[in-house]
């Protein structure tokens, strides 16, 4: 059996991924995260923040929630269930920083926690900045041309 045939055959032996269940759970989980965030946002607005100004502290609070859940060790269980519903919002980003920061604490504060905490989130920051730069450039050129 050559490599190509083998790869194909191995595919057929795989248990099917539960795509529908995953999508449904991601929808529910992501929706719950957004609902909690909305409640936090309303809380800040209730305290006199203007709506655009309230998004900043809301993100901070959501990051705090996700970090605590990671530190207490149950964020990964939530993510196993809700998948992208838990990972895609800013909660996932917080988890991606805190998890390695905790994990590599045993290797020291500087070379462990400090240097490895961006191991997972590093690409998000790098490519996020690159994308922001390019889209900023497009926006600027567009503005100058009067689009």
């Amino acid at each position, binding site marked *: *059996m050559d*490599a*190509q045939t*083998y*790869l194909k*055959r*191995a595919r057929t*032996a*795989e*248990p*099917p*991924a*539960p795509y529908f269940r*995953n999508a449904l759970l991601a929808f529910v989980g992501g929706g719950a995260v957004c609902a909690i965030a909305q409640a936090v946002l309303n809380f800040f607005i209730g305290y006199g923040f203007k709506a655009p100004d309230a998004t900043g502290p809301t993100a901070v609070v959501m990051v705090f929630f996700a970090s605590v859940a*990671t530190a207490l*060790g149950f*964020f*990964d269980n*939530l*993510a*196993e269930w809700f*998948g992208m519903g*838990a*990972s895609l919002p800013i909660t*996932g980003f917080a*988890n*991606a920083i*805190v*998890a*390695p920061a*905790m*994990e*590599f604490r*045993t290797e020291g504060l500087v070379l462990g926690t400090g240097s490895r905490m961006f*191991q*997972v989130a590093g690409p998000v920051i790098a490519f996020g900045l690159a994308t922001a730069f390019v889209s900023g450039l497009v926006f600027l050129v567009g503005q100058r041309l009067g689009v």
Partner: protein
Amino acid sequence: MPTLEETAAVARVGRQTSRLVHPVAVHQFASVVGSKEREGPLGPAFDRSYDDSALRNPTFEEGEVRLLKEAVMLVLQKAGRSPGDVDRLCAGDLLDQNVTVAFAALGLEIPTYGVYGACSTSAESLALAALAVDGGYVDLAVAATASHHLTSERQYRFPVELGVQRTPTSQWTATGGAAFLVGRGEGEAQITHATAGIVRSKGIKDPNNMGAAMAPAAADTIAAHLRETKRAPDEYDLILTGDLGLVGRRMCLELLGEEHGITVDEERFLDSGLLLYRRKDQDVHAGASGSACSALGLAGFLLPGFAEGKFERVLFVATGSLHSPTTAQQGHVIPCVAHAIAFQRGGTSV
């Protein structure tokens, strides 16, 4: 005393298979596991278990050292021996530089060979120990293997608290350590043959699909063993593989049939990776893996089976994925190997 040539004529069955000339047996075995393994179907068969916190602190790595060291101490204790009686420790684990072995052996005062065969380490270390004993180079040897779910997650995949969904083909690295005391003389489980594997790949590159990657190596070694010993599969009560899991086991059976013309009774073709956990309830996807997986299959299923007189002959085949995180990220295939050991009930002739 037979000449070297006379011995070689009996001992060298083929390029891959050696037949042991003297009676050599696993005289005692011991296992230490984590809580998930204790809760699995083989749980009652293991000697000692620890809750997760004991295997996480102060570091995951120290937890793994504890598993290996305690397994070695326990096998000696069960056999009424001391470390000074053992001439050789052949031991392996999954971590970079085999550090678990280094730290477990530190202070044991047993001459040590570190062995790396990834998840095939159990069979590799046991074969080396048995051959050394058979050749008269050592009197008593201990083969030991450990792995820890959290240390290998950290080394091979992601930080443990990172929220990621595992793919359906992924396998769960087992937490445990097992040790086997090998010496001359009759025992419940005699080691009669050792077949060394050839490193193979059929192009699988996905480290989350190790079962499919390892199946060709397993099929190849089983075929070589049967060919060189001139045995038929039904001369074995059981063929027990290491950690092929759901996908690998299926592919191995297909390859045996199609490439080697060997038909194996599915009911007598079991996999340690599918025995260790209740696959659906314990959320392990395609099954268990890790160097401890096959060793725990041996210590929790195969050897107790011999002790209960359930088996006459069993072929134990441990499979290993010999990639590193670096080679996988660079897009290379996963080189795999499988080593086999033939066991026979004590007091029967080969």
